[in-house]
């Protein structure tokens, strides 16, 4: 089988768009509200979820024929938990301030529905390479929405992007205010709603 056959390309690309884990499958909402108040943690969280989804998909897919059916969810959880712990330890060692910002949410990747959903729905039936692509695709689909919401929230809430001030001091002197509401999770939910709205308006036109 070719590395990028039609099916494999679909496994990688549909979650980015038509089958986006947040916008369409509505998975992983909790963490996407919590970590998107600034762009940097949103990017790190997106990457962490992408890596963990991809590798847990590969591992589960590789051992899928040996897993006893009765404890398959437990086996999946153990694999995910081990990967999450490793990623969180690496963050603590090499990116301490980000790990402080993400705090409990790295650990909570374990409970992110995207992971368990992909393991059950895809990795248990497919071989490692397509599972890897599926994990990357779903992780990036998740990361894309996180980055979008994170960028809007940081820009409107703090006037900066990735910590660099974008809105000039002159604007503040002229009476511009940062919108403090944007730093609250409630606004993330509203923004997420807007993203889903735009996404649906665009992709479900033909069905009407």
């Amino acid at each position, binding site marked *: 089988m070719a590395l990028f056959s039609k099916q494999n390309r679909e496994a990688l690309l549909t979650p980015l768009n038509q089958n986006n884990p947040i916008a369409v499958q509505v998975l992983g909402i909790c963490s996407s509200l919590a970590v998107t108040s600034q762009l940097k943690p949103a990017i790190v969280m997106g990457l962490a979820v992408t890596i963990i989804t991809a590798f847990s998909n590969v591992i589960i897919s590789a051992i899928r024929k040996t897993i006893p059916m009765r404890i398959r969810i437990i*086996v999946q959880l153990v694999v995910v938990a081990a990967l999450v712990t490793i990623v969180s330890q690496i963050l603590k*060692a090499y990116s301490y301030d980000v790990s402080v910002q993400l705090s409990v949410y790295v650990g909570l990747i374990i409970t992110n529905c995207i992971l368990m959903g992909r393991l059950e729905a895809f990795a248990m039936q497919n071989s490692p390479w397509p599972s890897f692509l599926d994990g990357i695709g779903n992780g990036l689909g998740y990361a894309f929405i996180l980055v979008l919401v994170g960028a809007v929230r940081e820009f409107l809430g703090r006037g900066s992007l990735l910590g660099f001030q974008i809105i000039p001091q002159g604007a503040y002197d002229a009476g511009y205010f940062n919108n403090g509401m944007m730093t609250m999770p409630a606004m993330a939910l509203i923004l997420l709603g807007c993203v889903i709205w735009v996404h649906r308006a665009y992709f479900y036109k033909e069905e009407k």
Partner: protein
Amino acid sequence: MKTNSNSYTIAYSAILVVIVAFLLAFVFQALKPAQDANVALDKKKQILSALNIRDLDDEASAAKYKEVVKADVVFTSSDQTLPKDLNRYTGENDGFKLNSSDYKAGKYVLYVCEVNGQRKYVIPVYGMGLWGPIWGYIALDADCSKVYGAYFNHESETAGLGAEIKDNRQWQEKFQGKKVVDAQNNIILGVEKDVKNPQSEVDAVTGATLTSKGVDAMLKDCIGKYKSFIEKNEEVK
């Protein structure tokens, strides 16, 4: 292979758990030195923040800490005399490694610092916020009568409300110049919703009454532990 038999299931889970346990133990051991260094550096940055030295990058703060903090002396509740020869306590010694549980066990650390040629003392404070632990560092002037600077941090206070004790730098700056003790050496530095003594009290954070009360209790309680040091110091002046 019969993957549904009981013995297979038990053997499978046992082997899986052992493999994962070894893997995690290995990762933990391999990364521990780097993690400890990060935690120590973060603590140094917090102590520097209390001395109003903020926004330095990693290397600069490590260097600045070395320059500014002359000693970390460990007190008990009975023995609170500053040793004559501070050089023995220079930099990161036992005091720096103490945490809140040592504090509960009755070992109190005092950071002796020098900023622009002036002696300052930094006291760590530990308390409870609304949702979890809060802590901070309070820098006092050489005669321990007034606050030189303050820094607070928290584990899980509400963003925008209780979390303001960490995020709102202007609020931390309000502590500067507040009186610490009254004539009878009672700790009067505090946080109040309704400020009656602006010399020693700071206005509470709006919408975060319980976190503010936690800060108030933390200040009274923890600075109180250094009472005999503060008394002695005032006599000296």
